[in-house]
């Protein structure tokens, strides 16, 4: 049995979510990283193992936190709305907010905190202007339920949906520079058109953005 066989399944290079892999590839080895809404710690574990990243996590669910700490990851129970203000400016090289922005109470404040505490911030969220969502709303008159938004209106944790267009505008308003914009499909695979244009607005199920404070 080779040594690679002993690596737990969820830490193999190809086993984290595609969009997380995309993020992981951006992060330089040895950097300081904060993963907000880190869940069970898949990205943190991957980066610790393969890129020697000094990673921390914040997770709302106790079960998620306990699972992370049980696996030797540095994770606290907390939430993006209240706990980011504690960190000093530029405490991290990277901060990641994956699929969580739409569940925060004050998303714009959160975005401003992200670029304050970290040199770069990666934010991904479901694009509420995707054609399948538009069509469910327009043609069926129902709140959309899709692969990236699997909840019903009454049980969704998502309280602040936005579209890629909204997001771009909000960044502009908050003096946040968009370094990179990557449109993703439902599986988290990158699409080949511009991340901020009309195609992205209509055909990207998710948007993934690299942000930093405007200088």
């Amino acid at each position: 049995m080779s040594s690679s066989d002993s690596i737990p399944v969820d830490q193999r290079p190809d086993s984290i979510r595609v969009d997380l892999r995309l993020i992981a590839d951006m992060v330089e080895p040895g950097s300081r990283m904060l993963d907000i809404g880190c869940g069970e710690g898949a990205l943190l574990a991957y980066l610790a193992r393969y890129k020697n990243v000094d990673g921390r996590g914040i997770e709302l669910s106790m079960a998620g936190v306990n699972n992370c700490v049980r696996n030797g990851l540095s994770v606290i129970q907390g939430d993006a709305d209240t706990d980011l203000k504690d960190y000093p400016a530029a405490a991290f090289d990277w901060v990641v907010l994956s699929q969580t922005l739409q569940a925060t109470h004050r998303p714009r404040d959160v975005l401003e905190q992200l670029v304050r505490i970290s040199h770069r911030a990666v934010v991904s969220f479901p694009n509420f202007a995707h054609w399948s969502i538009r069509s469910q709303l327009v043609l069926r008159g129902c709140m959309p339920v899709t692969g990236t938004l699997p909840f019903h209106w009454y049980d969704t944790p998502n309280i602040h949906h936005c579209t890629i267009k909204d997001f771009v505008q909000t960044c502009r308003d908050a003096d946040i520079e968009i370094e990179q914009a990557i449109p993703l499909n439902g599986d988290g695979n990158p699409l080949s058109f511009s991340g901020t244009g009309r195609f992205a607005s209509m055909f990207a199920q998710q948007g993934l953005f690299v942000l930093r404070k405007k200088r």
Partner: protein
Amino acid sequence: MGPILVAWDRRESKENIDTNESQNLLMPSLRYGSNGFYTMNTGIADSQSSTAGGKIVTLGTDTPMQLDCGVELGPYTVAYQTYGTLNADRSNAILVTHALTGDQYMADDAHPVTGKPGWWTLLAGSGLPIDTDRFFVICANVLGGCLGTTGPKDLDPVTGKPYGLSFPVITIGDMVRAQKMLIDHLGIEQLFLVTGGSMGAMQALEWAARYPDAVFAAAPIAGAARHSAQNIAFHEVGRQAIMADPDWHGGDYHSHDVIPSRGLSVARMTAHITYMSEAALHRKFGRRLQNRDALTYGFDADFQVESYLRHQGSTFVDRFDANSYLYITRAMDYFDLAAEHDGNLAAAFAGTKTRFCIVSFSSDWLFPTSANRDIVHALNAVAANVSFVEIESDKGHDAFLLDEPEFFEVLAGFINGCAEHRGLA
């Protein structure tokens, strides 16, 4: 908070509460073990016998220790236990810091005084989260204690009589300073981990703040960076109970051949309530009656909960010194890590490289999650490496001593992760 509760939890399934034992509360007597743990006739226990085979070292012989109160103390003794083996590069040492009424026998199978298993035998031992096969585990009786480390029942070298109330008021900082001298004496430059619950958590925090380079990782469990007004209030009730006992004699009970057992029992009973949650009290006792079918219309222990508390009080006086109780509760009251840094708790940890794991228990109202979260916020403010978990439990503050598998798994995960970073296989 002490081993008694652990012992209780283990026996409660087997037997009912012993009412005979609890009745002794009202008839204080000197019931000491044959090992001479308290030798009331001479007023002082011999240091070797009082540690009952544990390790003991005399420190501060060349330079006395400067206490926070301004007094110099030295030489003084530190009694301690070790488990496991120190590795060649002395990098696998874990210091466990004990709580108010705990002691150094944390992982012993049989406590030398009570005969019960040590207070953290569920957590520390071969193959357990604090694995004595991998780590060299040290636990020392705190300064001011009564199981071998210098405290108020020991002889004052100046007078040749027990210190009593002439013993200087000590602080959590003083306890940690004494432990640091012990660690230096053992030739350990950096502890792999400092961990403990309750007052043990206070010591772990003090260690990390005062000697950051000597602490690779710290796990303060169910603690706080300062003692709350409510907690000081409960301690004051306990102290007043002791001092109101005529047998206390202004702290000089040793020369009267008595101990203030009634006062100390009441102090323990009060404190014990704070270690439990309402849910736990209800689950264990409810309004059930103790060995009787009806109320007696008197002041006997009609209810099981009364009998339980009396039992806790009466057994406590056998193993704990009343003056030590005064001094150690005072040390906890004085603890305020932020105050030492101009009110800024984060400043206590500025630049720290120590890896932290903060643990709280959901039903702990003595050292609640909010107090533990304050520590987390301070550590975040200096971008420290910190984990924080709140364990769901209805057992109150005492949960840190009890069988809480999720807590054990979390601590084991933290320790293993740190061991990997420290290069400990």
